Structure formats: structure tokens, C-alpha cells
């Protein structure tokens, strides 16, 4: 073998060099070696890390609050223990306003965090219920009490002025 041929061989990958010197197919060519498996695994691991990192970056770079100041209803129109359904932040986004005590109001998104079914107020058992898969949320915190929902209901911040309740913004639960 001349020096030129040897240099040409050394510039190729290991598999290429092997096939150049031994140009015959055999069953072992189809095998994946442990090192190749490890290399593929590390690349897959890198892809998983990159995806998780993108989520972390999005978490810090994107503001996940939604909505702007909007009047909901007069506070006097909602009795204690009663509920008022409204749309917020968009016209198609269901939301629930609850009057827990004389002075305490809370509001949540009415979209279940499981599969986006509508959540309603179960007055008999004093709980927020998603009838699709029996998801139950706590009326005071919006946290999951039972069922498959993975996250609490997004919370809607409220303010009150001149007896009128306003939705300020929606934040993740």
C-alpha cells in the first residue's frame, strides 16, 4: 500500500476504512455495537435535555398571565355561597366567580386542566366539579381534590371598586 493510499484511508471513518479494505458484506455489518448504542443514547439524552431546557427558558421569557381589566358583575348581585359564570379573558374562555363569604370572592378559569371540559359549581357539595372525568377542585384554592386533572385551575385576580367586581388578569394555577 502506498503512502497516498494509506493517507486516503486514514481520512475516512472507521467503518469506511474497514469496508475499503474488506469490501464484502457480512451479517455483522447490520449489528449495532454497544458503543454505537451508547452514542445514540447520548444524542437522544441531549435532545431530551434540550427540550426540557427550552421549556425552562420559555418559563422565564414568556409572561403567562392573560387578560386585562374588565368588569364582571356587581358584588351585591352574587349571594354568599352563590356563583356567577362569565367569560374571561376571551369571549370563549369560561370563568367562574364564587362568593365564599360576605367579603371574600374568588374566580377561576372554568376550563378543566385535564381535557378542557367546562367546570361548574356543585352547590350541594360545595366544590368545583368537572363532570367529564369527575375532576374535583377546591373552591378556596382551585387545587385538585380528586380525579385526573394534573394542575389547579388558573386563578383570576379580582379587584373591587364602587361595588363592582373587576377581573384583573388570569395567572396559572
Amino acid at each position: 500500500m502506498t503512502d497516498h493510499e494509506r493517507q486516503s484511508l486514514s481520512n475516512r471513518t472507521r467503518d469506511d476504512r474497514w469496508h475499503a479494505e474488506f469490501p464484502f458484506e457480512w451479517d455483522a455489518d447490520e449489528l449495532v455495537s454497544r458503543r454505537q448504542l451508547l452514542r445514540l443514547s447520548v444524542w437522544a439524552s441531549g435532545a431530551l435535555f434540550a427540550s426540557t431546557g427550552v421549556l425552562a427558558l420559555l418559563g422565564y421569557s414568556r409572561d403567562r398571565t392573560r387578560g386585562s381589566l374588565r368588569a364582571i358583575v356587581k358584588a351585591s348581585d352574587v349571594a354568599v355561597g352563590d356563583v356567577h359564570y362569565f367569560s374571561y379573558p376571551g369571549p370563549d374562555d369560561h370563568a367562574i366567580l364564587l362568593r365564599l363569604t360576605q367579603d371574600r370572592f374568588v374566580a377561576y378559569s372554568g376550563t378543566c386542566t385535564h381535557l378542557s371540559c367546562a367546570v361548574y359549581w356543585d352547590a350541594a357539595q360545595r366544590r368545583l366539579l368537572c363532570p367529564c372525568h369527575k375532576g374535583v377542585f377546591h373552591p378556596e384554592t382551585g387545587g385538585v381534590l380528586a380525579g385526573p386533572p394534573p394542575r389547579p385551575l388558573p386563578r383570576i385576580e379580582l379587584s373591587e371598586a364602587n361595588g363592582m367586581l373587576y377581573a384583573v388578569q388570569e395567572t396559572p394555577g
Partner: protein
Amino acid sequence: MSAPLRNVPGDPQRGMPQNPSPGQTGLVLLGISMGILLMSVQLWLLTLAFNLYLSGNRRGTLIAAIVSGCVFLGGLAMLGVLRRTRRIR
């Protein structure tokens, strides 16, 4: 004149199939199993991070990303070690 190329079975320069030396097979398989297990953990971390992201939990998402990155760096380090390790049959 340069030295002739080696042409022995199991030469790492030729890409021929090789086996670990006797007694090391279990160790190699253990390493591969741990790698696959850690990748499963990374997949779980990705779903966890997605859930935390949707919940608005920035800190939790960042921690999940850091742990996932550590696993990836461990894999890279292992690749580096193996690249420097010459296999002899």
C-alpha cells in the same frame, strides 16, 4: 516507511465486532441498563417540566432542566472516557 496497519480480529480501528474481556460483560450491560434508565428519567423530567411550565412554576422547570442536563453531561463524559479507552480483545 510507516508501520503496517494492524489486521487482527477485534481491532478497534477497523470497526469489527468485539466483546468485552471476560468478567466485564456484566459491567458493560449494567452501564447500558443504567444509561437507558437515566434516559427514562429524563423523559419523565420532560413531562414533569411541561406540567410545571403550564402551572407557571418557573423554578421547578429550571431544576428539571438542570437535572436533565447533568444526566446528559454524564453521558458525554462516558463517551469521552470510552473514546480514550482502547479496546483489546
